């Protein structure tokens, strides 16, 4: 028996007068999947997210989420759906300015069922804000506010997290932290639908849905992401004293064909170009681990190299924020970047 998709959109349209924000969109998202929705401004990304959030209704087609037909459910039914099925993360955070971080999280509990202070505190600790419980939003940085927003979205254990440009208002360091949190949620089995215009963020998702004029366009090929992952793995292999790259390993032949690997003294090694690329990926990956361990006050992931790499555009900023660390939380060296101070 096949499991029905958690999100099932069939030929969905949304018109505002003569304007078609969505035009015959079909999409299925499986439980636990991370889908990034990308596209230029006005392509219908936010409209799609609003329909999935039960904040807007499709004017044609069928939208079924977790068995609820959002096109026919009553307004009250939609409110119940928002309360129980989805957690929303906004670009502008939308925290209540006169409530503390803790109360902002408890506000979502209050609408759902009963408030549980301990649980709300735990949710804030999980996003690294254990020491900021009583702070008002204006006393928190943008990244911290977004983390409160994430804690609020998660507090009622929704089946789906919908995030609309969650890093759009954040600097590089905070962007990395928030993305690390979202990656964690994904690993824990949450279903994520994330709207973004940033390709490097979209690349971290399982799947990218690109919209243009309210319709699906071809998404970027995933080969580049796979290649990055392979280069990082090979770098880690070669770091160990007896580490060797087996030619029969999946993707190695393609990397050789791309000029990233070659034979040196009968053994496979990185070319200059391959080394530079692998070094870059490893650096971003290990900085992400260091950042998570430091700022989110959580234990590092047991296995080194499982953290999602920081986006290339913010890597130097994060490195500087962390004080140019030499090793990751697992003790493995972090390759230095051009902006890092000379060792010693």
């Amino acid at each position, binding site marked *: 028996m096949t499991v029905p998709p958690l999100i099932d959109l069939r030929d969905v349209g949304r018109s505002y007068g003569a304007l078609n924000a969505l035009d015959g969109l079909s999409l299925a998202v499986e439980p636990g999947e991370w889908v990034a929705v990308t596209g230029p401004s006005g392509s219908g990304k*936010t409209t799609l997210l*609003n329909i999935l*959030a039960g*904040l*807007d209704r499709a004017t044609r087609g069928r939208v079924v989420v977790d068995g609820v037909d959002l096109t026919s459910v009553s*307004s*009250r039914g939609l*409110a*119940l*759906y*928002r*309360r*129980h099925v989805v957690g*929303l993360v*906004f670009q*502008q955070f*939308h925290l*209540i*300015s*006169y*409530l503390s971080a803790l*109360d902002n999280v*408890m*506000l*979502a*509990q*209050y*609408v*759902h069922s009963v*408030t549980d202070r301990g649980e709300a505190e735990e949710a804030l600790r999980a996003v690294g804000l254990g020491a900021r419980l009583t702070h008002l939003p204006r006393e928190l940085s943008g990244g911290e506010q977004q983390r409160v927003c994430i804690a*609020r979205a998660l507090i009622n254990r929704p089946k789906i997290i919908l995030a609309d440009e969650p890093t759009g208002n954040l600097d590089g360091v905070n962007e990395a932290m928030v993305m690390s949190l979202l990656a964690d949620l994904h690993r824990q089995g949450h279903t994520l639908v994330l709207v973004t215009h940033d390709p490097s963020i979209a690349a971290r998702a399982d799947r990218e849905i690109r919209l243009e004029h309210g319709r699906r366009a071809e998404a970027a090929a995933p080969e580049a992401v796979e290649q990055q992952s392979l280069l990082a793995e090979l770098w880690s292999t070669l770091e160990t004293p007896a580490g060797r790259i087996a030619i029969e390993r999946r993707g190695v032949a393609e990397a050789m064909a791309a000029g990233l690997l070659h034979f040196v003294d009968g053994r496979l090694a990185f070319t200059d170009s391959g080394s530079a690329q692998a070094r870059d990926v490893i650096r971003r990956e290990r900085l992400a681990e260091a950042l998570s361990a430091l700022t989110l006050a959580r234990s590092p992931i047991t296995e080194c190299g499982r953290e999602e790499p920081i986006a290339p555009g913010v890597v130097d900023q994060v490195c500087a924020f962390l004080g140019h660390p030499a090793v990751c939380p697992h003790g493995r060296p972090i390759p230095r970047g051009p902006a890092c101070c000379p060792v010693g």
Partner: protein
Amino acid sequence: MMGRLLFASLRHRGRQLGLIALSVLAAAASAALLGAFSDRLEGGLARDLAAFGPNILVRAEAGGPPLPFGEVATVEALPGVLAAVGVRERPLVAGAGAELEVASTVDLPRLHPAWVFAGRWPHAGEVVLGARASAPDARVVGTLTTGDRFDAARFVALDGAAVDRIEVRADAGRLAEVVRAIAARVPGADAAAVVRVRAGDAQLARRLRLLLLGIGGVTLALAALTVAAASAALLAERRVEIGLFLALGYSRRRVHGLLACELLAVAVVAALAGQVLGEWSAATLARRVLGAGTFGLTPLGAIAAVSAAIGIVGVAVLVAVQRVSRLDPASVLRGE
């Protein structure tokens, strides 16, 4: 959580909610003033209008003997009687002229304060002269200007003989009762309320009430407008917050409830303060206008203040319901 949310919101929006509270307070105070003053008006006005002449005249029955002097005291002792004066009139020159001799048990100006009296009321052998009266042989101890036929009178002390009439000022609300009591207690007397004065009392009271109603109505209308404007501004400022509540899964009815609770909390405090202010103003006004009035909370004042507060807050809640019903959370949260 609801309490914390309410308290935090009230604290955060002190200025805007303060304006609403002030408007409700003004409305509640006006209403309480109106209610409480009306409550005092009947008795107070009656006491005050005692200054404008007797409202009951007691005469001997047609064809009967004059009223004995002692009946003046009998009438004065009746419940509801504020003052009673026995009066006897005689022409100064029998069968000719307009000059009168008016004898009364006590000073007659007590019932006719519109008269201008200087000096003191006469004892035996003394006289008070009307403005146009001729000079007597007796000792003059005062002068009296009445503006009517009594200007040609000489006023003397009543010597204990029978009286022509007893002029009575009674509680305006108990005229009929007093008239019946006089008929029962004074044999051979014909007591009748002075209709002109009684109608004048009622008309004055009606006019005062209309004036107060007008002032109260204008205050209520202004307060309602202020509250409606302040509520609209407050809700415009809170659009994102309300959008967030809806996005989190609050139903519109629940959001209406939250806003209504907030406004109601403000209104309750403002209504209580308004009632105290209104009652105090009513007491002050009663002292100034009616000559008597003590501060105290009256049921009518409380009902009026609470009704005004509910009415005004009702306007604010209606504005809130209308705005929230029209609000689209998706566009608000997008910043449109």
